[in-house]
């Protein structure tokens, strides 16, 4: 079984994994970090989005062995301690979540957007979020949350 070493939420981890294990299964089952969710089996819904070396990726579409040597951040590692990350806080402020299932992926995706484009327009936000499906909110308050987090109060 291949051995991988990676950093997850700032912690160094070495593990043996089967080569066919998906990153999302590695995170959820091996590490017990159940914040990343599996909402589909065609890499469409984005509930599993995490950051790998700073970029948002769908962890259902990434093998754990591909992350050997990588820095992975999951929703559990987005904020330090008790405080919410500004994107998390804005989602709460704007009521950008309901059932919460798509939320971790949505927040990780949004955080990456703001890293790459600190002041996105509404159209840019909606375009970016195409890879994250939410069935509850109709997206309006998610868009609003991202506008708030980017300092463009909606």
């Amino acid at each position: 079984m291949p051995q991988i070493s990676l950093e997850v939420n700032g912690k160094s981890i070495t593990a043996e994994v089967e080569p066919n294990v998906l990153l999302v299964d590695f995170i959820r089952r091996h590490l017990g970090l159940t914040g990343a969710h599996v909402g589909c089996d065609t890499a469409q819904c984005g509930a599993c989005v995490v950051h790998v070396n700073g970029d948002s990726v769908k962890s259902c579409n990434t093998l754990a062995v591909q992350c050997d040597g990588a820095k992975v951040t999951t929703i559990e590692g987005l904020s330090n301690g008790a405080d919410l990350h500004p994107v998390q806080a804005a989602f709460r402020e704007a009521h950008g979540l309901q059932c919460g299932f798509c939320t971790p992926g949505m927040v990780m995706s949004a955080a990456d957007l703001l890293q790459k484009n600190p002041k996105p327009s509404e159209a840019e936000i909606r375009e970016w979020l195409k890879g994250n499906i939410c069935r509850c909110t109709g997206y309006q308050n998610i868009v609003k949350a991202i506008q708030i987090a980017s300092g463009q109060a909606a």
Partner: protein
Amino acid sequence: MAGTGIGSAIKRREDFRFLRGSGRYTDDISLPNQTHMHVLRSTLAHAKIKKIDTSAAKKAPGVVAVFTCEDLDAASVGGVPCGWQITSRDGNPMVEPPHPVLARGKVRHVGDPIAVVIAESLNQAKDAAELIDIDFKELPVVVDTKSALNNGTSVHDEAPGNLCFDWELGDAAAVVDAFKKADHVTSIDLVNNRLIPNAMEPRAAIGDYDMGSGEHTLYTTSQNPHVIRLLMGAFVLGIPEHKLRVYAPDVGGGFGSKIFHYAEEILVTWAAKQINRPVKWTAERSESFISDAHGRDHVTHAEMAFDKNAKALALKVDTIANLGAYLSTFGPAIPTWLHGTLLAGQYATPAIYVNVKTVFTNTVPVDAYRGAGRPEASFVLERLMSKAAREFGIDQAEIRRRNFVQPDQFPYATPVAVEYDTGNFQANMDQALEMADYDGFEARKAKSRKRGKLRGIGVASYIEACGVAPSALAGALGARAGLYEVATIRVNPTGSISVLTGTHSHGQGHETTFAQVVAGKLGIDVDSVELVHGDTDKIPFGMGTYGSRSLAVGGAAISQAVDKVIEKGRKIAAHLLEASADDIVFENGAFTVKGTDRSKAFGEIALAAYVPHSYPIDELEPGLEETAFYDPKNFTFPAGTYICEVEIDPRTGFTEIASFVASDDFGNIVNPMIVEGQVHGGLAQGIGQALLENASYDENGQLLSGTYMDYTMPRADDMPTFKVGTTCTPCTHNPLGAKGCGEAGAIGSPPAVINAIVDALGEYGVTHIDMPATPEKIWQAIQAGTRAQAAE
């Protein structure tokens, strides 16, 4: 506490765990020594199973057990029960064929479960399932709703011709008379497209059995754990309630699809005892598409008779509704009592008659999906109204105004068996027209035209019935259960409160809203109130969350239980304050002797109840905990007007929603932020139905739209920014004055969108377009219109 009680848009407390990834959904739970279950499903829509050979699978690596229908039958496991019986117009009960947990001798839809493999790992279970050898004899397939009746092939031997029931409501003779007097008749043929609910969390279930105590536990993605306990315990597995715990932890959306009792819940519960180890199952999305109950799927012909002033005289509706291959839990209730009873809409139409024939087909069972029957009614009626307006040459808003039930007519008994308690339909219309800048439409249309675009506006005024009630009525209509709700208010010794509710929150924010209700009524800090839901071991009983019932029925039960707490508190306070209970008033969190400054805070009374040193012990038991069962006196009737404006590119047929306005009357609102969020979500699902979504089967019964690559889920860039507003006529018969708000958006929006599209295409002679109105359909309609005009 000011600013946190009823009416305050406080932020949600559940957000902290969801935002940090510390929500606890069923698939997040792993039990020690658990096994994994894979369900082998039919890839054929209709076939006889001549033989199943599981011997190779049983020997495969890691396999713990393989079960088929034979094993379940040997253990006398019952079938999946149906919770609602409909009676046909000839007086016969509906045809209720067996619904085996695993296919017995025949498969009836793609996705029908045939066998389960339980193994140490999921991959081992899946690999082993491939070794199950099944000898099928393929049978002809019934898929299409309209042609399912008497088509030569029967899905069930018990239902030759595929008719489940033939139901009617209303006064047929009165309708015939009214049509004879009509100056104008508007008719329409339409399809209400089949949808797949697609809550983002796939269904999951874990069965666990404790040999020592004989107790079963089922962790499940359910909107109503007590209902599952009742159905599965009493009708399927014969487990008494006190030996069966059903726990629905965080649930990632439901929209109806997680109301129903599903085979997998039975399988994990039963199998856990057989192998004496926990059994876990989580649906993959491809499985959800072919095993979660679908929604809608009506084919309808409707006619509306008008006098010369466009006042409606009568409505006649003929619908064929597809129930799928088996009767799901509430399947039969949806196209009948949740559809026919809403056909009056907001209008004072004096005579209405509806006939609904339901059919079995080789498709996934159909049941409630957000709105459930009411979107189908609203679509028929609101399409008719806008079509009639065009035929009369009057405005869409005007024809509705002429027909509205007027404020002084409430309570208003419709010709279709319900009584609206209250409403003000014109108020919603006025608000919507204003928000939509309705008067400015023609100018915007002219601008669009300059850019080569077609612009249209659509109005829809919906009404819905929420919180099916009262229980006695529901029983008379065929419900096999009561439809009350239960709440316990447990005041803890130091004054904090646990609220136990039989409803279930899976996105609706009950933990916040219900705490507001209790804190508001008791005048205490909202943070000292905690909601407990989802666990049959903690909560006395409950009927769950669906049909926009949770606040109107569940909140009413909570309110009633709080009143009982206050009543007992007054007696305790009277003792402590040496006054008569009649003289004690409860206000702002304190019990006070009327007209004096002598008072006891709520917390002091709580402590006295648990430390009864000075206590009316001869008259009153210690403790402060009260339970209420609230049986609603009537449905609640939220209503509103939605206005959609679209811009269509005639070269591509692509529709852009230029604006969407919703004005709703939900009665009293506890948390406006949450209510607005509910409306947004409903609108997105309704707009999704109108423009994007469709469960598409081919003639062999294969689901073509079976993944997110094919089933067009609304995405962020498909949705507009909604403008929403509310008006308020408080519900007259529940203590909160609240109406349901969860489904409204999905009910009112499809006709608003289609009315707008048909309006935009009017110049091409288009009078109707079926949902989803895809660019291709619209482009074809434009081409056909252009050809027809050229030929003239």
